[in-house]
């Protein structure tokens, strides 16, 4: 009798965590896995006008790998992601190292540095659209003063993408700075003191102590920013609409246009799934590269 009761008690104890977890699991499943599964199913369909959706097998994916515009948008996205994340990391790290010490007005300076991050991306896009405006923009004004000619930054096939990268760097370097600053301030001080006693130079301390010890934070910061940059949309939509030509047509904009302007929902879903796979590959590669270098 006692043994039976004990077993019942064990069962209750064993099932309690599952019961407590169930609402969360169901919620996460409903909010993420279901839509994702629906997207995958949609990617194997087409939606002919006025007819029920039809399964087309791998046709959308076959079209995708032969779609020069999609491949070009992926290339643009990669260039944007690597350039923006790289610059944000270098600048964010530099700022974190510079501002880690105590100094007067540090609270005000640190707070003002994070203002760009607090502005909605659409508003950021509009602010920079004004700055880049060929007629009244600051850049054009400076170019006029220096060279006597105005400059149309967003109409230039060579300048438009760097201009978008600059906007992203302006907005998101503070994020990188905050993460890295928190990481630097949490490092134990003993190894640094020992290195200084042993006469190590500042450069050597940075290279052989700060960087290796900061590596987990760097991985997280790079991953978050790279994933975010890979899915950039708002700024591109507001500033260039993918133009001039296809110079700034990033993959997310192409997915949006394909779904909501061209009503090719199945094809857009296949693009979205391909992007998801690429993002997963991308993040795994970054994580693995950093693990390998430890």
């Amino acid at each position, binding site marked *: 009798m006692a043994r039976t009761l004990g077993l019942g008690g064990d069962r209750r104890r064993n099932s309690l965590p599952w019961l407590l977890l169930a609402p969360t699991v169901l919620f996460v499943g409903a909010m993420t896995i279901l839509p994702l599964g629906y997207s995958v199913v949609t990617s194997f369909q087409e*939606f002919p*006008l*006025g007819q029920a959706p039809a399964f087309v097998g791998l046709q959308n994916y076959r079209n995708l790998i032969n779609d020069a515009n999609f491949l070009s948008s992926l290339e643009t996205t990669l260039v944007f992601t690597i350039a923006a994340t790289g610059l944000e990391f270098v600048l964010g790290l530099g700022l974190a190292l510079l501002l880690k010490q105590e100094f007067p007005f540090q609270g005000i300076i640190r707070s003002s540095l994070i203002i760009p991050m607090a502005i909605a991306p659409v508003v950021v896009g509009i602010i920079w*659209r004004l700055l880049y405006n*060929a007629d009244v923009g600051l850049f*054009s004004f400076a170019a006029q003063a220096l060279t006597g000619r105005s400059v149309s930054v967003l109409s*230039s096939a060579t300048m438009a993408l760097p201009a978008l990268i600059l906007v992203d760097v302006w907005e998101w370097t503070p994020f990188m700075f905050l993460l890295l600053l928190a990481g630097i301030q949490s490092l134990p001080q003993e190894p640094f003191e020992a290195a200084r006693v042993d006469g190590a130079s500042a450069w050597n301390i940075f290279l052989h102590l700060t960087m290796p010890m900061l590596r987990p934070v760097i991985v997280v910061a790079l991953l978050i920013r790279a994933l975010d940059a890979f899915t950039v949309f708002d700024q591109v939509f507001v500033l260039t609409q993918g133009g*001039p030509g296809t110079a700034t047509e990033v993959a997310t904009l192409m997915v949006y246009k394909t779904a*909501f*302007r061209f009503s090719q929902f199945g094809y857009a879903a296949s693009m979205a799934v391909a992007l998801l796979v690429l993002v997963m590959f991308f993040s795994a590669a970054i994580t693995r590269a950093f693990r390998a270098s430890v």
Partner: protein
Amino acid sequence: MIRRQFLRNSLGTVAAAAGIHTLSSCGGSKSSGGRGQITFGSYADPALDTLKDVLLPEFEKATGIRTEWVEADFSGWLQKALNDGQTKAGAFDIYVMDDLWVPRFAGAGYLANLDELGFQIDQDFVPSALDLGYWPPKNGLRQPGIDARAKSTLYSLPLISDVQLLFYRHDIYSSGSPTTWDDVLRMARQKCDPSHRQYGWVSRGVKGNPIMNSFFVMLHDFGGGIFGENWKVVFNSPQAVEALEFYLSLLAYAPPGVAEFDSDQEGETLLQGNAFAATMWTGWCRQTDDPARSRVVNKISFDVPPKKVKQVAKLGLFMAGIASSAPNRAGALEFLKWFSSSATQLRFARAGGTPFKMSALKDDEARKGSRWLDATLKALTIGVPSPRTSDWSKVEDILGTELNRALLEKGKAKQHLDAAAAEATAFLKNAGYPVG
């Protein structure tokens, strides 16, 4: 254009974008009081103000049906409307649409059949405006998959007459409206003075739909077109190449950065007195005489676009259709009947709206308050719509991208039109069009 005005417009865009987020929480809730409620879903546009501010309160008073107006920016609303149509969520009773959405919405079954609901048309409708509401189209090519013998059915009605007019400065064109495109180019050459920010022409240059809206009229005026027999792409014909070369030569007298101009910058350039002429939508007319918006009050006149070998105006009407999942279909139908009656159209025109009934467009009192109604009626009669296919947006994007490239390179018209034609043909062939 001055910074303040640019910023004001930009903030307007932000407000509209922010409106998208509120959309999902709106609509759908129906009051049980009176005769119920109808919910309109729409894009934000000043041309709708008279309808919202004057006519809807009248409708509520006359019928006891309450109205709710939910709006977002153009792209945001299209996205919401497509979602609502596809999922049959029933969040809206009436979709406000750009006329080029009609093939997509009617073809996909998102709109209720107005013929079946018993809507009766009359002879007072401007024919070109009414025709836009039919699917399959009453005239011209039919999209693959649509039975060639299928009867054209009324799925939506005009809501606001919007058509491209020539806006020109009559203090500069002192001898009257330019009748040919050569007149426009001549004046641009004579009077363009960039050092004083005076430009002979302004246009939209952003890739895709914006630049296509600006080039469309010129393409047709020069004898070109989009599709020939059996959907053959013809926008790289010699006439089309000539039209693009002319367009580029005219843009030499446009403000710097015109390749990144969309509707707001085009309009502001004209309203701030920095350009002599442009082809713009009727929706901008009232703002030219508003001292709070315009520095050229009573200096701008309106006419049909100039001609070359032909003379056309681009139709871009606001349409209204009843959602097939509308919770209050009867109320929505009652609104369409009420609003499209000649009596209401007359009140709408006299209150400052742009009607779609002949009698209202010809009304003297209405014309006194809206001096563009005469040009609007003329433009409607020579109006050409976007091709009636649900795939037009894709073709427009392809052509509009190459036009934007030609604008940046200031030339290579034939090369860019050929590239667009090749890409569009491949797309159409893949989509099942008999392009050969």
